[in-house]
């Protein structure tokens, strides 16, 4: 059964209220065709998890601007003025998470860990509501894993088995979210035959990937 699908086929898989993890740092490494699809389909009340809310007119930021997002779990919103506005007006909930903690929470979700102890955020408002543990005299916050219904991943190359290679700074959160969601949908710039990627260059094993679309 081929993993390669058309955008029309993929559109069926998105629904209101989904928790969606997205790859990308600002706009680099975000699957724009899949975001197009989400915008076009108009699904609402989404929870989005990823590094930032990008720009009003690029990347995941377009979902924010289109009021499709109920909650964003991100590390940075400063480049998208709509996020700030909707956050202040109470129309959208924003959970700000330190970037390293966010990456690690997604990794923990994908790796079956129940949480981890980080020194980041101790003594700041980030610690509010969190359990604190002292290990060997040092105080840490217990941070909990994040998982999602769907991950939308941007790859440079995919083979037909779903093995992925990312390029430069477009890697960012993509390999992490590909481990942490029930359904993993990949937008690849190039789709190659099985055997064309060397096993050592693969950054996400194909068994994690459910669906591939051509960018």
């Amino acid at each position, binding site marked *: *059964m081929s993993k390669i699908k058309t955008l029309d086929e993929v559109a069926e898989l998105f629904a209101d209220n989904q928790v969606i993890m997205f790859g990308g740092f600002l706009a680099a490494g975000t699957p724009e065709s899949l975001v197009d699809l989400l915008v076009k389909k108009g699904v609402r009340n989404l929870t989005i998890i990823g590094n930032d809310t990008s720009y009003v007119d690029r990347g995941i930021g377009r979902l924010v601007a289109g009021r499709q997002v109920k909650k964003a779990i991100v590390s940075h919103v400063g480049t998208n003025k709509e996020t700030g506005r909707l956050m202040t007006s109470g129309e959208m909930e924003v959970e700000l998470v330190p970037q390293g903690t966010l990456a690690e929470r997604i*990794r923990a*979700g*994908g*790796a*079956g*860990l129940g949480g981890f102890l980080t020194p980041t955020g101790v003594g700041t408002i980030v610690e509010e509501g969190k359990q604190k543990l002292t290990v060997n005299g040092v105080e840490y916050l217990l941070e909990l894993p994040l998982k999602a219904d769907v991950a939308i991943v941007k790859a440079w190359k995919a*083979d037909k*088995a779903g*093995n992925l290679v990312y390029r430069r700074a477009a890697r960012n959160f993509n390999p992490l979210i590909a*481990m942490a969601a029930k359904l993993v949908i990949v937008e690849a710039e190039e789709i190659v035959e*099985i*055997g064309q990627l060397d*096993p*050592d260059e*693969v950054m*996400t*094993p*194909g*068994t*994690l990937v459910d669906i591939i679309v051509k960018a």
Partner: protein
Amino acid sequence: MADAREMIVKRVAKFFRPGDLGNLGIGMPTLVANYIPADKGVMLQSENGFIGIGPTPKAGEEDKDTVNAGGMPVTIMPGGACFDSATSFALIRGGHVNITVLGALEVDEKGNLANWIVPGKLVPGMGGAMDLVVGAQQVIIAMEHTTKEGAPKILRKCTLPLTAVNCVDWIVTELGVMEVTESGIVLRELAPGVTVEKIQSKTEATLIIPEQIGAM
């Protein structure tokens, strides 16, 4: 006994569905690979760091860097992928492995498993077994039904130190196929010529006998 093992691994192979990622333990479980059709779309993980275990290489074509978790030379199939040990166990613990097949010293009716230590006698270490049985979506135990001395290995309660609690889903032996459920161990299939009385006589736990029992 060779026939018993062959019957067990052939049956275990049938659990795999297209697209599954499997992990086979050292020993008898490794032989399951021989009975999964190559065109079935099943990938096998080697927990030392790759997906896509292929056939044993020909003599003289071994690659020192391409070995399985038992240290034996293997090959990597087209479509395979390599990774480090943290990623390998992120895949395992994170539920990305669909089926793991392992041997056992003891299994009990709560699905508890003991397969890594006999205190004072055999202390090899747990290796990856504890992570595999906690993380894999389905845990299948492939083993001979009793010890060499004929003592039952499917018990009311394990006596050896556990590998994990409540982790086993299926037990496949030369006598039959059993499913571990919340109510206890259900007999699902009997091997040819084996009666319910015979399999129960070699099992300490009381098997739950459903109306329909299949042929193994």
